[in-house]
């Protein structure tokens, strides 16, 4: 198989350009084709074969479609860098645009539009006018797109020569593909905006084309319908009626475009809202059985729709459970959605899944799953007990990163539901392995300070941290300072007093971090005043963390 065209890549020897030039002059059709293929191969690998331009152009006048296509391909690539030479090709292009064969007429118009040389543009106008009026729809549909190309090269010309009117005229063309391409060209001319291309008088025609044009044309038309602002609720309803069958199309781009139309018209048809939203769910879920790239796009779209409407998806939450072999980007998106969809009815099932994921080999994913358990606990208070038990199970596995992640999450839960789950703290302290992540250390030290009066060996635990305080990042040092002060306030003793002193000395004398030093001075001053006021400042409750699943 590889021997087919790849032979053109081989045999790059010196003087080949001269040799090709000779070959191009012979009158042998097969040799010509082979040579042009060789030249294109050289072009693909980045060789400069531009010097052959005149010789290749000379062969352009041929009856053979295959050869002609090859030469056109070559000329698209080099015409721009050789405007003077490109003029040589113009005559052939113009001649080809009047060829009896519609495929060649279309090819000529299409290629001329791709050669973006200002001087050629002038010559393009007449053939393009003809092509837009061609009897063959294949030529007209190509010409429609060509107007957009011309517009990007020279917009004044398009306006002066009346191409826009002609293009607008094609919107009424009987052929659905011509119409779809004209719409595409107008969208292009409006810099990608689909607004104001369709008006109410055109609607019925648009619906007819929508049935008959290609799948890609459907996408363009649907996008314009989404941008179209319907004048009344009845009209919006009518549009929706006509496009709803497209939800069943095999091309997912069509389906998604159809969903965009539905979403854009929702505000006008309040009474149909629920049923419409229910209808968009099954096709979206079906996309989750397609290849992974499609799944990814479907998931991001679902996620976006969910920010506005979660309820239609509630029944389908199981569709977002991760398969073991899903690619990691699919798993991450699914997890985002699971967090958004969690409510009091499904939290049990989802929690079991999250627990399952927490043991995955993909560490980043496992961590995200553990964080998600925390979000569930905050967003569904009725089930926070279940979440805490799940987190404790994870801590019992003693898998290092999982334990640390769970610890961070638990801290938030403690903050959110004070005085409810402290019973697990002693178990927590027992199962801890070595912590090496700042965020986890910080959380653990916070817990130690907050619950100093309930943890028996809190002084020993804190001391180990304080002994190594030098090497800690500043976030940990700050937390350590606060927690030590809390310890002293909650369990005043000689031991805790000496710990506080050690910490304060470190912060004010050894550390060079201004935040740490300032905080230490504040504590120092407060403590030296003594009394209850210190406690009311230092041990007051932090506000509960805000739960925001989308972040």
């Amino acid at each position, binding site marked *: 198989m590889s021997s087919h*065209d790849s032979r053109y890549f081989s045999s790059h020897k010196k003087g080949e350009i001269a040799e090709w030039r000779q070959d191009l002059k012979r009158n042998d059709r097969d040799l010509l084709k082979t040579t042009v293929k060789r030249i294109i191969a050289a072009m693909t690998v980045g060789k400069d074969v531009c010097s052959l331009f005149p010789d290749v152009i000379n062969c352009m006048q041929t009856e053979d479609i295959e050869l002609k296509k090859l030469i056109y391909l070559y000329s698209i690539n080099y015409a721009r860098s050789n405007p003077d030479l490109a003029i040589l090709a113009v005559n052939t292009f113009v001649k080809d645009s009047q060829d009896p064969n519609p495929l060649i007429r279309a090819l000529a118009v299409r290629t001329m539009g791709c050669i973006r040389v200002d001087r050629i543009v002038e010559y393009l106008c007449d053939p393009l006018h003809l092509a837009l009026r061609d009897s063959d729809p294949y030529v007209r549909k190509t010409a429609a797109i060509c107007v957009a190309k011309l517009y*990007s090269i020279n917009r004044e010309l398009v306006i002066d020569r009346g191409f826009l009117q002609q293009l607008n005229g094609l919107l009424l063309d009987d052929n*659905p593909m011509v119409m779809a391409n004209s719409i595409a060209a107008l969208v292009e001319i409006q810099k990608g905006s689909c607004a104001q291309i369709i008006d109410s008088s055109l609607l019925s025609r648009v619906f007819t084309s929508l049935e008959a044009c290609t799948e890609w044309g459907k*996408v363009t038309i649907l996008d314009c319908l989404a941008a179209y602002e319907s004048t009344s609720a009845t009209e919006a309803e009518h549009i929706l009626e006509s496009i709803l069958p497209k939800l069943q199309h095999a091309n997912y*781009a069509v389906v998604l475009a159809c969903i965009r139309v539905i979403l854009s018209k929702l505000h006008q048809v309040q009474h149909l809202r629920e049923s419409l939203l229910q209808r968009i769910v099954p096709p979206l879920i079906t996309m989750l*059985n397609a290849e992974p790239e499609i799944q990814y796009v479907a998931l991001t779209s679902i996620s976006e729709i969910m920010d506005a409407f979660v309820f239609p998806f509630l029944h389908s939450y199981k569709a977002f459970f991760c398969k073991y072999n899903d690619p990691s980007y699919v798993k991450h998106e699914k997890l985002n959605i699971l967090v958004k969809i969690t409510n009091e009815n499904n939290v049990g099932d989802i929690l079991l899944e999250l627990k399952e994921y927490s043991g995955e080999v993909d560490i980043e994913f496992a961590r995200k799953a553990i964080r998600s358990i925390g979000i569930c606990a905050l967003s569904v208070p009725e089930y926070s007990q279940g979440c805490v038990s799940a987190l404790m199970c994870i801590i019992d596995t003693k898998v290092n990163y999982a334990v640390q992640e769970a610890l961070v999450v638990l801290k938030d839960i403690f903050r959110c539901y004070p005085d409810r789950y402290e019973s697990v703290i002693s178990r927590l302290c027992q199962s801890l392995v070595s912590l090496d992540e700042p965020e986890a250390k910080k959380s653990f030290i916070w817990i130690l300070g907050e619950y100093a009066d309930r943890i028996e060996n809190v002084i020993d635990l804190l001391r180990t941290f304080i002994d190594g305080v030098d090497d800690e990042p500043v976030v940990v040092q700050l937390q350590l300072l606060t927690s030590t002060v809390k310890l002293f306030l909650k369990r005043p003793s000689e031991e805790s007093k000496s710990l506080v002193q050690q910490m304060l000395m470190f912060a004010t004398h050894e550390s060079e971090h201004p935040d740490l030093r300032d905080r230490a001075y504040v504590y120092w001053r407060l403590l030296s005043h003594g009394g209850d006021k210190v406690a009311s400042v230092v041990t007051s409750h932090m506000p509960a963390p805000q739960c925001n699943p989308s972040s």
Partner: protein
Amino acid sequence: MSSAPAPPVRVGHALSGIFVINLRGDVLLMRAYREDIERHVLDAFRTQILNPRDDGFATEAPVRRIGSVTYMMKRSRDVYVVGIARGQGERGGPGDANLMLGFTFLGHVVRLCNQYFGACDENAIRGNFVLMYELLDEICDDGYPQITAGETLKTYITQKGSKLEGAIGKEAMERSAAEDQRRAMEAAKQVTSAVQWRREGLSYKKNEVYLDIVESVNLMMSAEGTVLRANVQGSIYMRTFLSGMPNLSVGLNDRLGETTRVTSRGEDAETSAARDRRLIDLDDLQFHQCVRLDKFSAEKVIEFTPPDGEFELVKYRVSDNITLPFKLMPVVKELGRTRLAVTVNLRSLYGPTTVANEIKVRIPVPKLTARATINVSGGKAKYVPEEGCLRWKIKKCAGHEEYQLDAEVLLANTLEDHKPWVQPPINIAFHVPMFTASGLRVRFLEVKEASNYDVVRWVRYLCQSGGSSSSSYEIRCA
């Protein structure tokens, strides 16, 4: 429900170009559809995406944005087919790329490669680059996809793929210029007609229709045997060899179609209730472009004029009342630090007259496995170190049978910290011919054509799993 703001309407930008790059970063070919991309767009891709700085999992996502350029990467074997779109807009804003359009289009490119030269990989693309250029030129104009239906393209694509070269190539060579001309006129006419997917004037001596219902079962089951999630992704594939412009209609035993038909015929309640029990609830249906969607939505009849040859008529999804073909009960026990006992019990749940074949069970074992002693009551099993699993194959399995695998797995003794092992799920792949997990059946297949010829019809069923990346039949172990 309060009225939340509508999500943004994402309207797409056209593709600026497409390129194919291998995993080493060599560009195999590139076709720019628009002015707005230059060579540096490729360089950015190579340096920032192919050799990403370490920024975690995000690098794997198939969509990447660098500045205003969006790259859509579709992996196919050892190459990436990459679509480039340029948008001035924010992510998800009105100027953003239409990702779904991009990926479905790239999917079509890969499909066409497979159709024309049998594969979409580095070798095949290097070997057929001229054809690739011609294809890319025809299927997209200025970034707007045009005609991608394979059958139609064949009428006017001049290059022959290495796969097709044999017979067709010769025929093409012998064609005269005049003949070429005539064909071209026809092609242009067909391409823009309302039935773009079918040529006129086809003629077969023997008119035949093949209809295959192929179902992929997706299952996720807990170790206790609870079904966490099960669905069937089914397809109806057709192969048609029919003369002229036939009109086909297909009837299924789905609830949607049946209720409309019954009420219109006015059957009495009893028979329709009896029938009701065997009706299938389809969650979703997606049709090939030849199916008249308006007709389906009004009358629930699948009616169409088929393309010639092979195509996928319908994709459907079912998630209720699924008959699972197999049940599997795993028991994994840790016997001390270096020994595992694995017992897996497999039962077939379909009727006794049905026979499944090529059943493959993959049972993952720890990486440190040194060897395994396996006993099976049927089929063959062995430890496959490179996949880290025990592989158990059963050639044929009739309905209501039961097989068991008992294995003792010995782990290498290392000084490493002994972490508890989290067992990945067990996977089963299988083929069960003449069985559908959803229970879907073809009720009728009618062919109507002006000349009223006789048609031979073939209908087959297949239920499978593990065939593609998106179908899996997995049973969790812990």
